[in-house]
């Protein structure tokens, strides 16, 4: 199908069906029924089998016309793509539609306190009892778990197999007595994450995804989608300040979805504020500070260029090894650290203060207390360096200490 044909068909369909007076769910139901909610999905499941270029074109039309799209916030999207890839027809039929309409919110239950850098070391236990899976264990770093209806869960069904082989992947209802969600406050005062405690929580046999013992392969699908969304913007392309019920409800949904990420720009160091701060405070005249600003802005621009070059090469289908996401992630960490250093130098003693009456309405203080997260979240700097060294540079791996049956591997109590 030609791009122009797609555009024409969609535009005329929208002319006919779009109205800001729908409820959010009603509008998205119309979208799903007409096959415009997830056009890159297969025709059997709400889609049109479009290529990702075609799907992007569709999104562009929605954005241009300022029309509310199907629900796609992060953990929701990861769940949908993973179910699409590994689910049975029954699972797809049951779970995909309410994800697109926004009726079901999802969360991701992978990380555990005992296995932060080592997802495959999960020790949450899933045991089949009386035809259903009984789950016991603790998960952590679960964004939006307190708003979620369902979770994608990585748990161990066999402790006698090597660690990657004993894992299974489940779709778990968050609304049950065995699941307790507690907010987890961070050192910067925000509480963007949760801990999830599962005590004899239950998953019906039909909600095992991808088969017993295949959890790591299924999780790999989720993680690969997660990495792809790393560079994407979290902000909706739609202007939310328009009249109409669907806009109001969508704005509310977006506010909830974005709330955990409000401090993320600070976590990256707010390089954008550096020059104006240096001018306001007069720090721009301090040669020692100028050196550090120059280093920071150099790295920042270099990182942007490096990413643009990688993107250009990817698009041109070049065979050259393109530095992976790990380089960008490690770079972001180095930049944020230097930004915090520079903001500290610029502020001087004022950096002792926090809150609304401190520099940039407390934003500088929030930077100083948020940057330590960027070198940890989503894989520590140390893990990124290992990946770069082994996968990009081809340096030899170390002998592993975590082979053999999982139960014999030394791990945290």
């Amino acid at each position: 199908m030609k791009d122009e044909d797609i555009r024409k068909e969609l535009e005329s369909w929208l002319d006919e069906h779009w109205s800001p007076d729908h409820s959010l769910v009603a509008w998205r139901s119309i979208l799903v029924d007409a096959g415009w909610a997830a056009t890159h999905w297969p025709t059997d499941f709400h889609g049109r089998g479009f290529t990702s270029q075609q799907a992007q074109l569709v999104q562009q039309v929605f954005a241009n016309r300022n029309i509310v799209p199907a629900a796609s916030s992060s953990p929701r999207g990861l769940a949908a793509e993973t179910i699409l890839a590994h689910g049975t027809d029954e699972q797809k039929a049951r779970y995909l539609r309410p994800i697109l309409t926004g009726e079901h919110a999802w969360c991701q239950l992978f990380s555990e306190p005992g296995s932060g850098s080592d997802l495959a070391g999960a020790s949450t236990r899933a045991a089949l009892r009386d035809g259903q899976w009984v789950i016991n264990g603790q998960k952590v770093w679960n964004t939006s778990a307190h708003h979620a209806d369902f979770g994608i869960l990585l748990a161990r069904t066999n402790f006698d197999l090597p660690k990657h082989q004993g894992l299974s992947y489940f779709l778990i209802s968050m609304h049950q007595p065995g699941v307790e969600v507690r907010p987890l406050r961070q050192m910067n005062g925000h509480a963007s994450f949760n801990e999830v405690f599962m005590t004899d929580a239950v998953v019906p046999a039909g909600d095992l995804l991808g088969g017993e013992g295949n959890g790591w392969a299924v999780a790999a699908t989720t993680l690969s989608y997660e990495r792809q969304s790393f560079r994407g913007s979290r902000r909706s392309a739609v202007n939310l300040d328009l009249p109409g019920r669907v806009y109001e409800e969508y704005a509310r949904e977006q506010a909830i979805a974005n709330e955990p990420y409000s401090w993320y720009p600070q976590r990256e160091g707010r390089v954008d504020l550096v020059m104006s701060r240096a001018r306001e405070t007069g720090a721009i005249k301090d040669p020692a500070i100028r050196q550090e600003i120059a280093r920071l802005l150099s790295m920042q621009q270099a990182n942007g260029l490096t990413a643009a070059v990688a993107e250009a090469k990817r698009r041109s289908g070049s065979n050259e090894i393109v530095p992976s996401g790990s380089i960008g992630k490690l770079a972001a960490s180095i930049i944020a650290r230097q930004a915090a250093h520079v903001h500290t130098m610029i502020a001087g003693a004022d950096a002792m203060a926090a809150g609304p009456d401190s520099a940039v309405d407390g934003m500088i203080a929030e930077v100083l207390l948020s940057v330590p997260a960027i070198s940890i979240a989503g894989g520590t700097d140390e893990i990124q360096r290992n990946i770069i060294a082994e996968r990009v540079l081809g340096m030899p791996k170390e002998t592993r200490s975590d082979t053999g049956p999982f139960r014999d591997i030394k791990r945290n109590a």
Partner: protein
Amino acid sequence: MQLTLSEDQIDFQDMVARFLEASSPPTEVRRLMATESGYDPEVWRRLSSELGLTGIHIPETWGGSGFGPIELGIATEQMGRYLYCGPFFASSVMATYALLQMASDEAKTALLPGLAAGETLGCLVLDDLNDPVKVGSSLAADASGHLQGTAPLVVDANNADLMLVVARETGGLGLYLLDLLEIQDTPANGLRITPRQAIDETRKLCRVSFDHTPAVRIGDVTRQGLNRLWDHIIVALAHEMIGGAQRLFDSTIEYTRLRYQFGRPIGSFQGLKHRCADLLVQLEFARSVTFHAAACLDAGNEVAHEPAMAKAMASDLYMEVARTAIQLRGGIGFTWEDDTHLWFKRAKSAEVFMGSPHLHRERMMTMLEAIS
């Protein structure tokens, strides 16, 4: 010059450590930092009267024990280690040193015994906490001793009974006294003490402003004298930072020994080992230099680069240790629940308190140039 602690000094250090171990566990730190005053009067009383810390560096004539910067450094090092919450730094370090070094004998006699006993609490108002050269740029006294202007950052002003103010005056700087109990009764005194939110909640900060506020002039402040006062304060501060850094470093090494990932203790990964080894070198460096700076003050060296050097090195070291302490703990180290951030925030705050590292390196160079 003294290189290591004497046996008496080691005993003193152990005594302070035992006291704070019992009275300032993290649970107490968390409880107190959430209060307005930020300290426990009973612990303060014992620290002052039983341990005599508030008067350790005050001559016996004025009710102290007559020791010097080394012993004060021992005390602040342990306070940094246990993150002691209280007005010690404001009152016993900043205000007391200001009196000792700049006040008239009359004022010393009147005020030091109360500070030595911990019965009165002082604070020192400097309108700039970055650089001694800038002090006096926004706070001035007129010929009748009335103060005008603002000091944006004053430690523990909310807890003070008396306030020492360095203000610009015709021809230079002067040291002024405000008795806060007394001035409350003065109508329209123009004094405003506004508590401020601090990055480091264990150390209370206020904005203090004066609008024709009556004060008493109690001493001359020369630029050289102010530099010397500054150096005494930053050496006590450097000790505090060493204490905090050592604690974080020790607990981090311990953590890497006990925490397993990929079937082995994370401390067995060479990347972490090398980082910790480099930190140890930095820690030993900063510690040696800080102790030496105290010894230089103790020996009465007039202009020395060592205090600036110690502050710069201790600041860089403490931040680096704090950063590593969070990093090696991973996600858990970034949570409120974990104690690491309490020290991290102290490290960040102390880094810029009384001058950032690059500023002290510049000061140090100026002094080194002057020498040779």
